[in-house]
């Protein structure tokens, strides 16, 4: 089900410019493919009948995204379209406005094919926590596609979209990219506006692209990055943002690459280890200088993450109360309190409830200092660890996830599932940008399962991040 005749943003733009096909034709082509393949994968939750081509006057010369069909994770608002966050409580919710990232893509002339599946409210590492069924991995449909941007990862891998938007709170763009064999970029926290992204954990959430190539990721980032007054954590950039495609080709000879030994500790799959080591050797052969380093506080990242995230979740999801929007359990005899209790009981899934409960506990009187405050302090120590490394090195590298895509149901235990984030969530805690690119395949039960390689850079150094990723991607071809 994986389509190897890759349609990239670049190639579709070329085709449109040369007149090989029209926008209407390429969109219709994707719609037909989705109709045929989506029932096997459940990558899309909603498919748009006639993707509105907002900007009839799109300019193929100036906008690479004009007319290039795109998929959007169903926790990012597109005005007048349903946005469910894969939750029953928002099953009928229709977005009243565009997310800033969407408004910017519309301005660039992007047609949207539909909204993609996710773990409910983006909470999960496998895509199995969707209220509307899991997304299956195009490389092996007995396996998960990775979460939480499950549908975006699968849609891009199966070429049911040229590219997609996802969101990443603790690995939700990079994990599906790793499991599905595509490129996933999580920008620096604050580079891309969160306005119109359904909030999960606001101090960590970030929108980013899932694409087939590093160059495509840079192209999408060029279009969605930048300050937005509608998001108070969006960082005002005094100078103009760089063109993220400009330096991709530049040699990485002499660049300093740090390899934390903690990314290669117990629990790492043998084949994933070998592929990551091979990618590091490749970087060395390209002239990069490789050193082993230590990030001792990384060991505590998952523990910190699963205090901070549930705490923010418990506050952010208080708005789903059966009154303002979404599902409402409203029996004649019930009181206002009953409406709250029953709407949330019926409308929210088990993982969402688990996190709300954990967060409510961590923030409750008597426990705040021991859990939330402690976690915030250890978060600072994790950030300090990275700061020390980035004072000397350009990028940090390692595997994205410790193993290839697990089978459906394999990560049923909540704590086991949380540990899937072990290499990805520290990056969100430190607010850093990171990318996952394919570095080869693991042989598992007669199937070839993709494996991702993660590259991490300092705050707002996406240009260097993409340069290293591009060089490695080309060398691994």
């Amino acid at each position: 089900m994986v389509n190897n005749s890759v349609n990239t943003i670049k190639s579709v733009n070329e085709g449109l410019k040369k007149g090989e096909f029209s926008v209407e034709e390429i969109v219709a082509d994707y719609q037909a493919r989705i109709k045929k393949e989506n029932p096997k994968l459940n990558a899309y939750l909603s498919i748009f009948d006639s993707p509105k081509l907002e900007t009839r006057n799109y300019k193929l010369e100036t906008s690479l995204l004009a007319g290039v069909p795109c998929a959007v994770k169903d926790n990012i608002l597109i005005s007048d379209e349903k946005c469910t966050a894969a939750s029953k409580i928002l099953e009928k919710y229709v977005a009243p406005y565009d997310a800033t990232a969407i408004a910017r893509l519309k301005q660039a002339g992007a047609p949207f094919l539909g909204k993609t599946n996710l773990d409910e409210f983006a909470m999960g590492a496998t895509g199995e926590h969707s209220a509307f069924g899991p997304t299956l991995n195009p490389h092996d449909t007995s396996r998960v596609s990775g979460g939480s941007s499950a549908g975006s990862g699968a849609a891009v891998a199966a070429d049911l979209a040229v590219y997609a938007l996802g969101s990443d709170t603790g690995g939700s763009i990079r994990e599906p990219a790793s499991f599905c064999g595509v490129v996933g970029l999580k920008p620096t926290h604050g580079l891309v506006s969160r306005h119109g992204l359904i909030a999960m954990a606001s101090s960590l959430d970030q929108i980013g692209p899932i694409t087939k190539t590093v160059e495509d990721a840079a192209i999408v980032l060029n279009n969605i990055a930048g300050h937005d007054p509608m998001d108070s954590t969006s960082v005002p950039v005094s100078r103009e943002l760089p063109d993220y495609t400009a330096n991709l080709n530049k040699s990485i000879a002499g660049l300093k690459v740090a390899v934390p030994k903690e990314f290669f500790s117990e629990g790492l799959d043998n084949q994933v280890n070998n592929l990551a080591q091979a990618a590091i050797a490749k970087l060395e052969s390209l002239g990069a200088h490789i050193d082993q380093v230590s990030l001792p506080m990384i060991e505590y990242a998952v523990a910190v993450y699963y205090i901070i995230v549930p705490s923010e979740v418990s506050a952010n999801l208080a708005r789903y109360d059966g009154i303002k929007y979404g599902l409402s359990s409203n029996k004649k005899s019930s009181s206002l309190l009953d409406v709250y209790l029953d709407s949330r009981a019926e409308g929210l899934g088990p993982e969402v409830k688990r996190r709300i409960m954990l967060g409510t506990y961590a923030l409750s009187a008597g426990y705040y200092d021991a859990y939330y405050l402690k976690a915030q302090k250890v978060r600072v120590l994790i950030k300090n660890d990275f700061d020390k490394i980035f004072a000397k090195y350009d990028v940090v590298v390692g595997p994205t996830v410790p193993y290839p895509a697990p089978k459906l149901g394999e990560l049923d235990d909540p704590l086991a599932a949380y540990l899937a984030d072990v290499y990805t969530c520290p990056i969100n805690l430190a607010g850093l940008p990171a990318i996952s690119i394919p570095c080869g395949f693991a042989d598992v039960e007669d199937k070839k399962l993709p494996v991702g390689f993660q590259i991490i850079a300092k705050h707002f150094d996406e240009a260097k991040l993409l340069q290293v990723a591009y060089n490695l991607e080309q060398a691994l071809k």
Partner: protein
Amino acid sequence: MSKITQKDVERIAGLARIRFGDKEKEKMAAEIGAILGYIDKLKEVDTDGVEPISNITGMENVMRKDEPTKNQLAEQAAEAAKLIEMAPDNKDNFVKVKAVFGE
């Protein structure tokens, strides 16, 4: 610290405004207990003198003047109508809720 009883679950569920059945409560107690057991490893870390931060890029209290722009006024009126329409129950351009005070 990480032993979670059914009573704890009931207290938290009340705060979180979620109704749980007895079976669910039991499951929730076991799962939350296991997760908190793992999180207890944070106790090992010496955090004396560490100042907690809440925004990782170092921004604090981003403010703006409480003045709508002209554009916003028109847009907001249209959006407000959409938002009220979105409420499960509404009447006369208001969101309708159950009685807040007893009879």
